[in-house]
């Protein structure tokens, strides 16, 4: 078996194992796994409304996945996507609601505000990592909680003690009559186009620019890159900022497309953490991220159908997603297993 083949098989096997163990969990808990997965399937592809909503759910997953993947390629682990997403959501909604401008200025401006807020939120961990060698994992985790509480406080202040922001102006909305009517009035919006565009942007930065080359080089070997004259600190900060901008965009999609406003939250959205799964499954490549996002976005949306159609708590899908990450992390064991099989075949 070729190396390339194994690289493709590892995530596929991880997904299958995840679904399998998920089925066992359902079976042991006294639920019917077949009915569960049928409900899941119906929730994803059941009718055109479900398909529209699934694509809507995939949109922020693509962007969150890109954010994690981009940082990974530079050797950084951005667990802070969740927090960057939350500030991006808020900033986009704020600009979308507070100003009254023509659409061709207002919409891009609101989207950019989200990206900028996310980038800013990621800048600090990048700076601390570059200047003081403080591990970005700890700082980004703390920044997540700061984002959650600060944004909640900001929403309270803005709404005068309420728990939601004003709605954005029509001129800042990503909503689309066309896409919506196409899918039986789902909340599908133009964000998916923005997300796919960003996939191309990430590919372009990493593969076609000098900056991208430097970023990847720093990710591979810090010392060698420094010896070759690259500035490590600058590249770390830049990588975090770009990653944060992707994450902020994911939040902007939720704010400007799906919801049109923002509520105070008791906990995280989960999109940022699932972005880690998306990136890992996609092997941190732009194209891979699309596949990962399609899979996890569908699972996540389809799961909502499970309590109604099969009386199974939707958390079982979160178990499956966690297991898939776990099995991808254990890729070494799967790889070992695959090479053993292929060797046996060759001997015969």
């Amino acid at each position, binding site marked *: 078996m070729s190396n390339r083949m194994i690289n493709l098989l590892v995530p596929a096997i991880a997904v299958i194992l995840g679904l399998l163990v998920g089925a066992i969990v359902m079976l042991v808990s006294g639920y019917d796994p077949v009915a569960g997965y049928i409900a899941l399937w119906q929730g994803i592809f059941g009718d055109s409304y479900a398909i529209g909503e699934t694509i809507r759910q995939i949109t922020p997953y693509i962007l969150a996945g890109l954010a994690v993947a981009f940082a990974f390629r530079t050797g950084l682990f951005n667990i802070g996507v969740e927090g960057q997403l939350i500030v991006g959501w808020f900033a986009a909604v704020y600009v979308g609601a507070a100003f009254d401008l023509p659409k061709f200025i207002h919409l891009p401006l609101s989207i950019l505000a989200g990206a900028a807020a996310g980038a800013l939120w990621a800048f600090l961990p990048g700076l601390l990592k570059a200047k003081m060698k403080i591990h970005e994992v*700890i700082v980004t985790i*703390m920044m997540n909680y700061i984002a959650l509480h600060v944004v909640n406080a900001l929403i309270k202040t803005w709404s005068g003690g309420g728990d939601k922001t004003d709605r954005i102006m029509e001129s800042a909305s990503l909503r689309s009559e066309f896409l919506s009517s196409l899918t039986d009035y789902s909340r599908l919006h133009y964000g998916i186009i923005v997300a796919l565009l960003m996939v191309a942007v990430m590919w372009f930065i990493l593969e076609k620019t000098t900056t991208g080359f430097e970023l990847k080089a720093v990710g591979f070997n810090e010392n060698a890159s420094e010896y070759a004259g690259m500035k490590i600190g600058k590249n770390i900060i830049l990588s975090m900022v770009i990653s944060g901008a992707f994450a902020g965009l994911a939040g902007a999609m939720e704010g400007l497309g799906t919801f049109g406003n923002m509520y105070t939250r008791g906990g995280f959205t989960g999109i940022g953490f699932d972005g*880690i799964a998306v990136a890992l499954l996609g092997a941190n490549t732009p194209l891979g991220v699309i596949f990962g996002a399609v899979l996890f976005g569908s699972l996540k949306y389809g799961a909502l159908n499970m309590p109604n159609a099969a009386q199974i708590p939707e958390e079982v899908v979160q178990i499956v997603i*966690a297991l898939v*990450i776990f099995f*991808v*992390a254990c890729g070494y064991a799967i790889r070992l297993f695959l090479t053993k099989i292929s060797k046996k075949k060759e001997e015969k």
Partner: protein
Amino acid sequence: MGFLDILYFMVPVSIAYAAPLIFTALGGVFSERSGVVNIALEGLMVMGAFIGILFNLFFFDTFGSWTPWIALIAAMIVSGIFAILHAVASISFRADQVVSGVAINMLGLAIALFLTKMIFEKGQTDFIKKAIPNFDMPFLSDIPVIGPLFFKGIYGSSILAVVAAIITWYVIYKTPFGLRLRAVGEHPMAADTMGVNVNKIRYIAVIISGALAGIGGAIYSQTMTRDFGHATINGQGFMALAAMIFGKWHPIGAMGAAIFFGFAQALAVVGPSIPLIKEIPTGYLHALPYVVTILALAGFIGKATGPKANGKPYIKGSR
């Protein structure tokens, strides 16, 4: 309110918040000293918090007032077993330990919430009838100043936490097992040539870390929230991780840092009744512990260097 009154008010709350952090941070010390990065502390703590509440609810009729303490043991066992997943991935399967930890965190929360929905048919459990009790220490609480500060209305679990920190220090620095543990985390190959079974020591360390984080989680849920839901632990495990780093991977240092973070959390809780801090809206106060953590990491400790082989799987025969 005088300064001393504020202290009388704040210190006991700080200690109450610190106890779960101390236990969990000690778990982190065991794991990371042996060379296994343990971001999974959060998920292990969630598991402990859930099991603690579940056990307390179901066995209150059997064990009566001893229930919360036996619940701690139940949480310890279950989280210890749960930690084996992280051990298998990061020790035997050479997984990226941070990624495996993230998976365990998601898995812990997902399993706990799944079971909560299954058993209680709603998003959170019922409230427990018997929480971990707080009491005034005889004699000691009568000492002026120090008594009301440290010994009045103290939770038994807080005393346990301090004892655990001292025991951990003894185990890691004064016993053969501790020496092996540190050796395996600094230079596994050298330890291996001296006949130490690297993987075995690491497995034990990770399981201990799970057990301690489980206790920490069960203490938190049985003193603070008294039920279990999706936001029960909400970052305590990560805070414990930061406490461990802040304490430079030393048990006593981790305890000190945990108390400091406990203080920061207490500030958010009792802040609204303290002059000066009262002016800050509560929303921002909730962000304070995390801001303090970043400042602490950035300002006070300088460059933190963990055990040398931390995060690297040991592969026999490789250089």
